Every structure is written in C-alpha cells, then in structure tokens.
C-alpha cells in the first residue's frame, strides 16, 4: 500500500475500495448462522429475514454465495439522492455524504444490483452528484491561483475526491509557498523549509479529516 505520510502519492482506486469495505451495511440473510467472532468485532447472529449489520466485505461475500440480500443504505434512495443533487447544485458547499460513497455505491452496483430499487436512476444520480462535486472542486481550486494560499479547506470531501485532488493540491500549494517565500525573503534558506513542513502537515489534516 502507498505510504500515507507521503501525501503526494495517491491511493489507487482498488486500495480505496479496500478501505471502504469496512463500512457497515445492513443485510437480510436467508440462512441461519451463529454470530461470527472476528477481530474487528462480533457480527450476527444471522436469522433468516431479520436484518443484521455487517461490514461491506462480509455482505459482499455472503451476497456472492447467495446467502443474503443487501439493504441499500438510506442515502442511496432516489429521493435522498435527488435532494442531495439539488442541494449540491444550489449551494457552494459540499453536501454530507458518506466518506466512501463512491466506493460503496460502486461495490453495491457491482454485486447487489438486484437489491437496489430503481438502480438505473440511483446510478445516474450518483454519477451526476459525482460530476457536480468534481466540477465544484475544479472551480474551487482556481482560488489557489488567484490569491496567496497556504491551505485549502474542503469540508465533506469524500475519500475518492480527496484522493484525486491530493497530489495536485499539495504540489501546487508547495510550489506557491516556495515562490511566495522566496519572493518575500530571498536570502534565507532554512525558514522556507520549516514552513513547508508546517504547510504539509496542515494540508494533510485538512484533507484527511472530515
């Protein structure tokens, strides 16, 4: 896996998907099974037709064996997504969506397409939301070039989105910073270095935390 401290290197999509598999989803098993005692916690017991909370990877594994149906998360309904899309278009801010919404929806579309009502609608809505948000990120990044920026504040950014902009933003900010400081104090060599580190740290925190 990529070294996380090196924030110029992005995760691959597969890596992000792997991380997203720890998110909890609700399944409706069609078999009876004792609770699973795993390191990450106990899941189950599983009783037919009674919903249970399990991590996504387990849900997908069970689904592949035809042992359960996955209940799509609440935010994945046409109604909710329509609202989010509208709000996303109307406001400057990013709407609150699960951190791994891209990966979760992708996994569910791949493995549990028959469990999602109105799947085509849901899929296109999520695509739209994704597009709108990326567009917003794009326009948002323009401010970097307009004024002197040391940090970027992007609230409610999802994992995938942060991942995509991370290499560019960090590089850009570093470059700007370098240029700025060299303009202001051309003669000192040690200070910019320390400041760059500070910037890097702040950067990391802002982008990773939600």
């Amino acid at each position, binding site marked *: 896996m990529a070294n996380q401290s090196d924030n110029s290197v992005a995760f691959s999509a597969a890596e992000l998907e792997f991380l997203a598999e720890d998110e909890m989803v609700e399944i*409706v098993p*069609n*078999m*009876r099974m004792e609770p699973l005692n795993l390191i990450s916690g106990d899941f189950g017991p599983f009783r*037919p*037709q*009674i*919903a249970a909370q399990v991590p996504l990877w387990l849900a997908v594994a069970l689904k592949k064996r*035809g*042992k359960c149906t996955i*209940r799509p998360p609440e935010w994945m309904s046409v109604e909710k997504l329509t609202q989010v899309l509208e709000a996303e278009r109307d406001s400057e801010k990013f709407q609150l969506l699960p951190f791994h919404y891209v990966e979760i929806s992708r996994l569910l579309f791949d493995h549990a397409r028959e469990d999602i*009502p109105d799947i085509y609608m849901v899929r296109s809505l999520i695509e739209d939301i994704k597009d709108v948000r990326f567009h917003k990120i794009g326009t948002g990044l323009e401010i970097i070039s307009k004024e002197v920026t040391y940090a970027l504040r992007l609230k409610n950014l999802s994992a995938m989105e942060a991942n995509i902009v991370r290499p560019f933003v960090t590089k850009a900010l570093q470059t700007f910073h370098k240029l700025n400081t060299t303009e202001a104090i051309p003669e000192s060599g040690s200070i910019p270095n320390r400041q760059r580190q500070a910037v890097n740290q702040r950067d990391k925190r802002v982008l990773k935390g939600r």
Partner: protein
Amino acid sequence: MKIRSIKLREAHKNSNGVGSFCSVLWDQQGEHIVTASSSDSSICIHDAILPANPPKVLRQHRDGVTALSLSPNYTCLASGSIDHSVKLYKFPAGEFDTNITRFTLPIRALAFNKSGTMLAAGGDDEGIKLINTIDGSIARVLKGHRGSITGIAFDPKSEYLASVDSIGTVMLWELQSGNTIHVLKGIAPVIGSDFSSANIVSWSPDGELLAVPGLKNDVVMYDRDTAEKLFSLRGDHVQPICFLSWSPNGKYMATSGLDRQVLIWDVDKKQDIDRQKFDNRITCMAWKPTGNALAVIDIMGKYGVWESAVPSSMRSPTEDIPGLSSKSGHGLLFYDEEEENPSVSGSLSDLGEGSQDESEPFSRKRLRKHHSYTDDWEEDTNEELELLPNVEPRKKAPHGHRDGSDNKRNKLKDVPLSTGPKMQEAIQPGATPQLPGKRRFLCYSMLGSITTMEHEGYSHIEIDFHDTSSGPRVPAMTDYFGFTMASLNENGSVFANPCKGEKNMSTLMYRPFGTWANNSEWSMRFEEEEVRAVALGTGWVAAITSCNFLRIFTEGGLQRHILSLDGPVVTAAGFKDELAVVTHASPPLPSNEQILEFRVFNIRTGTQPRRGRLPLTPGSCLSWFGFSEEGYLSSFDSTGVLRVFSNQYGGSWLPLFSASKLKKSEENYWVVGLNTSKLFCVICKSPDSFPEATPKPILSLLDLSFPLASSDLGSEILENEFIMNNTHLHRIQSTIEEMEAAGEDTSLLDDEAFNTEAALDRCILRLIASCCNGDKLVRATELVKLLSLEKSVKGAIKLVTALKLPNLAERFNALLEERMNRETTGGKISASTDLKGDNSFNAHAALTKSHVMVESSKRLELQDSPSLNSLAPCQTKKRPLEEPIKDVNVEAENAKARKLEMAREFKNAFDMKNAKKVRDEKDKVDEVSNAREEDEVKNANGVEDAQDQNGEAIKVTAQRPSNPFAKSSNNKPNTSLFDSLKKKVKADR
C-alpha cells in the same frame, strides 16, 4: 392543535394562473381519488394507495370540468363541464358511457340520488334538471333560482332536494311533487360571478340536518322539515366558508374557508377540533369512506390527503357505521363490506346524497339504523312532541312519526344500537387483505411465506422459505379454486377457499413438500359447509368450518377426528402436536368487546390441556394468534397488545408488549412471531396496518416488556427486567417440572434456570440500589427477601453499608440469619414432605428416581479426586456472580470427605429426621453445603420408607417453615443431579 403539513401534489395544471374550482372524490374503498378542475378539461382517477402511479386521465370534455359525482354504488361517474354537457363514465374503468344531457350554459353542480336512478344537474341555466340515469330522460326541471346554481344535494331519505345559488338563496324542493317547500333568501354568502368558489348545501348523513355556509363565516344547520335554523358552527374562520363536508358517520364536519383554512368540527359539541392552513384556498374536500382521512384539492389544482384528520384520540369518522366499527382489524374490512352489500340493496339501498360534487357513501348504514330506532320509539315519541312547541312544520311530512324522531334524535344517539358491534370475522394469522392487482400474503410466518395474486380468474401462488438454504424449494402453483386461507410448516402447506356460489364449493387442499410417494397431495370438498380457518402441525391438518366443526386430518389425508366446537371460529394455529382454536363465546358486549374463547388440543394424545377465555383490549379485535418459538400461546390484538399464556396463577395471559408504550404513533406493528424476549414483527408506516407482499417485508425485533405503571422509583427498565426474569424463571421451572414428570434429563434447563436466577439477582441488586437512592427502604427489604442466592444477600448488605444505611444493613443481616436457619431446617423438612404423596403415582415416580439417585451417589463415591476437581471449574462457571474461585477449591477438597460422610448419613438420615432436630453444627458454612447433600440422601431414604413414614411425615409437614420455596432457591448452586431431585420434591408437593 398540531400543525402538520400536508403534501399536495399537482393533479391539474392551472393554465390561466387564476384560481379555478376543483373537485375531488373518493371511491368506495378509498382506493382511488377522482379530481377535476374548472380550468382543465380532463378528469384524473388517481391511485390513492400508490400516489406515485400515473393517474388515469379521462379527456372527454372540451372545457373545464366543474362538477363530479359518483353514483352510490360507485359504478358510474358523472361529470359536468363548462362546455354545457353532462357525461357519464363507467367507474373505476373510466370508460366513457354517454352524454346524458346538455345545457345551454355551463354546469356548476351535480348530484346522484340515493338509489342512483336520478341525477340532478344545475348551473348557470335557469332550472335544475332531474335526469333519469337509465334512459337519460328529463324527469323534471325545478325552476326558481335567480342565480347560478352552485350546489345541489339530495336528501338521504329521498324526499327533498336542497339547492343553493350564487346569490345565497337556498331552496328546498319536494321531489315527489317538484314544488318548493322552503325558500331561504340571503342566508348563504353571495359569490357573484367568481366561480372559483361555490356555495354549497349538504345534508347530514342521517338526513336530519342541512348544513349551509352562513354569512358570519360560520356553518348554519337547518332543520330537515321546518327549515328552521337550529344552530351554527362558529369558530376560527375569518372569511366565509366555501366548502363543507360531513364525515361518513355525521359526527364530524370539515369546512374550508376563503381564508385558506380547513377546520374539522365535532358537530355534536359544535366545537372545532383541528385545523390546517394551506397555501391556497381549498375548493373541495371528501372524507375517505373507509378511514380517517380527508382528501382536499385547492384552487391551483393540487390535491392531497390529510391523514387522520380527526385526532386519533377521538372516535373515528367512520365509527358508528355498522360493519366498520372494528375497522382496525386486518382482514375485517373486506368481509364486512361483502356482507353489508346484499342487505342494503333493499328498499333503503344506496343513497344519492351527494353535494355538488362529492358523495357521502356510508351514511346509508347510519340511516338504516336510525329508521329502526324511529320505528321502535314511535309510541314514546308522540308524547315528546307536545313538549316541543317550537317545532311547527309548515307542511306535515308523510310519515307521522318523523317529527318526534327528529327531536328524539339527540337522546337516541346514546342508546345502544340494536344491531350492536359486530362479531369479529374469522382471520388467518399472518394473512393480509386482498387488494385488487396486488400480491397478498396468505400466510407469513417465521418460517416462510405463501403469497397469491389473482390474475384473470385464477391465482398464482408462491411458497418460499426465509431460510433458503434449509427449507425445501417449492415450485409456484396455479390455483383455480381461489384459495384465501393457507398455513405453512416445514413439511407441507394447507390451502382452503370459502364457498363461492353453487359450483365453487369450499375446498381444502394439502400439499406436502417432500414425500416418498407420488401424488401425496390431497384435497377435500365440503358441501353446504365452508372452511373458515386452517392450521397445520406435526402430522396433522386441521380445518374449522362454518358448521363449527373441527376436522382433523392426518398428513396423508385420512379423516381422523371431527369435533364440534361451541362457537363460530375466529382463528386457529398449530405448533407440533398442539392445535389452538379461538372461537366466539357470545356476541360482543355493547361496549364492543369481543368475547372470545380459546382451546388447546393435543392432537397426538387426543387431549385438551388448556381452555379458557381469550382476553382482548376493549374495543379491539384479534389480529394475530399463534405460538411463540418455544411453544407458548400468544395473541396480538388490533390495539397492539401482545399477550402470552403462562401457567402462572393457574393459567393466565400476560401482556408482554404494548404498542402504545413505545409511543410511536406513526408505526403499526404486524406481528409474525415471538420468542422469550423478542417480538418479531413487520413495522408498517401508518396508516398501513399490514405490509405489502412485494418486496418481501423484513422482520424487526422489538423487546418484550410489561406495560408497567410509571413508578415513583423511575427505573422502569429495571423493574421490567425484574418481572421478565421472574416470568422467565417461572417458565423454566415449570418446564423442568414437566420434564421431570416425564422422566427426562433436565440438566441443560437447570443450568439455564441457574443463569436466570443469577441474572434476576443482579437485577434485584440494582433495584435495591435504586430503591435506596430513592429512599424506599421497605421496598428494598422486600427485594432482599426475593434474592435467591445467599451471596447476593451478602452483596446487598455490602451495598447498603456502602450507601451508609446501617439500620437497613442490620435488617438485611437479620434476614440473612433467618434464611440460613431456615436452610438447615427447611432442607430436612422439604425432604420429608415428599412422603405426603406416598400412595400416589408421584411417590412411585420419586421412588424410582431416588433409586437412580442412590446409585449415582454411590458412583460418585467411587470416583476419585481428579473427577471432583474437574467438577470444580464447572461450579465456578455456574456461579458467575460472586463466589470466589478460592471457595470452590476448598469445596472441591472437601467434596471427597463429604461423599464419605454422605454414605454414613445415608444410614443415619432416617433417625435424624424422626428426631426432627436441627443438628448443632460447628462448622456452619460447611454444614450448609453438606445439608444439601444430606437432603438428597434423606430424600432417597424417605421415599423408600414411604409407607411406614406416612403419619410422621404429616406431622413434619405441619412444622414446615412458612416459606418452603426460600429454601429450595437457596440451594441452587448445587450439582444438577441434586437440583433435579429437589425440583421433584416441589412438584410432588
């Protein structure tokens, strides 16, 4: 008053931007809503159940539709339009039927009469046309209005017609002669030429009152015959009322004003009870005929449904209409309807009470009821007449008694109905009512489901199991019988259909899932008898018929037993060998309490172990009945109370769940099953009371809890846990007793009993803590007495010491001492009480038991210490509470010595018992544990000598301490073998 917002959805585009008059109607079952707008030439038939479905659109008119009316039998829809025509359609298909008449100017109002044979139409033309709906001929034209006629209403008793025009004049016409009998000028607001609102008149469903919007922003009620102003409803309307609608039972009224408010009134109290503000003026409203909902439409063509318009705390707007009184039940509504229809097709068949564009369908029932009163009360009321001088009818009505009945009305309302509440119809647990075009459940249980969907005369039945891995896979089948009842278990499914006409006899069919022989499916036909309920168990099928026969078949189709039940069946449920049947014991009480009785049959042994009355919440009906996973009989009623049968108090029903306690009014619970601590149900969003079959509903788990009163202690959760644990313990103990009587091994259950006791003690200790904090010391002392383990009592003492309550600690100490004393004495005595039953079978059973006992104790003796050591960890496990491991080790060491001692005691025990003395023990703690072992030996000894000891034994029993149970529970942390023997003692006693 709560402010809820009602979501309105657009039905008709408002093209000109100005408000237009819109109309809305319900159909009979409340499944469709019909809307029209005066700015739109189309009529929409919306699906009320799934509003998202696209509406059916009728585009016959060339201009805006101003009036709608449904015939009383809901088969014919009439519409009037600005294009001067009145058209008829078939309903609910929406097929255009005919242009029944034409005017020279726009139509404004339409109304069917009660029988649907006549349609009244009025508008900007001069007269009201009465049109024969069969041939379209004009029966009469009623001329007299000066303004546009905006409202017409047929009197529910078919004598009068009321009409109102745009200049505020109300006229009452006699239908037979066509004469005006009253002209009331200027009583309604003048609306001039603004046709986006309309004056309206409306008869109350019983026909006794005529409601007209008044000039003072009120509704004025006029007397039926004299047209005198009786009273008015005045309240919060700040502008004139433009529409009003009576609830189906005539108890409530909805009014909408130009001030964009809708108010709900309690007509009897003349008080407004709820209100709703809208963005636009509501031009039309209609009460749902089958429920508490009001459809509204505003001038912009947006319609919506106001659910529970009448607050749920009040009587439903459909209540008091016979046949709908228990509407909350699952399957009731539909049966009621079917039965009601033939009876009303007589002289008093259907009503045509339809104000301008809405009808009030169920009033006919009320009407019929009322007639029966008036006949009964005719004599009495004549006297009353003279006491009421203010009633001076201008014209005597043809029926002499009516005036009396008129004034008598208020009193009559309170008299119990002669028809009374209806007996509940038969239900099948886990079935949902039939809705046209929808898949429904015939059976939904913890195991699986059976669904059916009618399709062109036959049905398509699917059976599937929740657990697809273990359940058999059953192919779908086509059903030509039209099965309405079904039941399912692991081995097979049973289906039955009611009798439908002569050639479609009632049939019972059984379909096994797995069998070694071909064609093991079988069916039975019933002549002049129909199946009302079915149930399945291990190797048997039961059907209860309309003749009150309980027919029991074997799995292979052999007719095994036929029993006669003593009442009409309500439902039946099977579990292994047991069949439970619920029947009506008598007609319901006038307060609408169903009187039900249950019986449990054991099919294998041919016995009836239990029977009794089935309790229900007053005013409710049974909505689910069955067995819990452990086999406890349970019932669920329509108010959401779950009851479970228990052996406590000689067999009684415990309320273990109450939906009202959850305080989630927007949810309804559709029960599927339960186990000891959880209720499995499908949660339905109100107003739905049952789930749809697709997608397959998911079960939710709800905690069982007693409906406790709010205690001053404020620890309901603990108190609930306390009672639950007690109940659970009682159940386990009674199961152990049963199993012992059958001579089965109970060691597993003993463990469970011990764990439950430990849990109970934990709970009691926490309760003691909260009692001490709440300063309820007496209660705390009572609780200490209930502790079953000695260690827990010590824990309690520590607890109160820590809480700085020394005198309580003292009390507890005294209790502990008392308990320890009792333990030493009580142990012996309880052993000897065994002798009481010496001459019975029990003694014999005990005798054999004790032999086993002796043998096993001998065996134990022979075992050496390793095995005893292995016993020790298991003991620690059994005492998760506070017994330190150290103790156990000591015990293990002592155990060997004890065993030897035991053998000695075995010989001495008899003498000791006769002496009836508590031995002076030096080492008390050790003795307490030894005493237990002693008991066991003595027990065995005692039984062997049972015959000889009879006399003495009785004496001994007389000296028994007041609470013998205390002893038995004290001895719990014992070996299971001993435990079971001790239990035996209790059982024998």
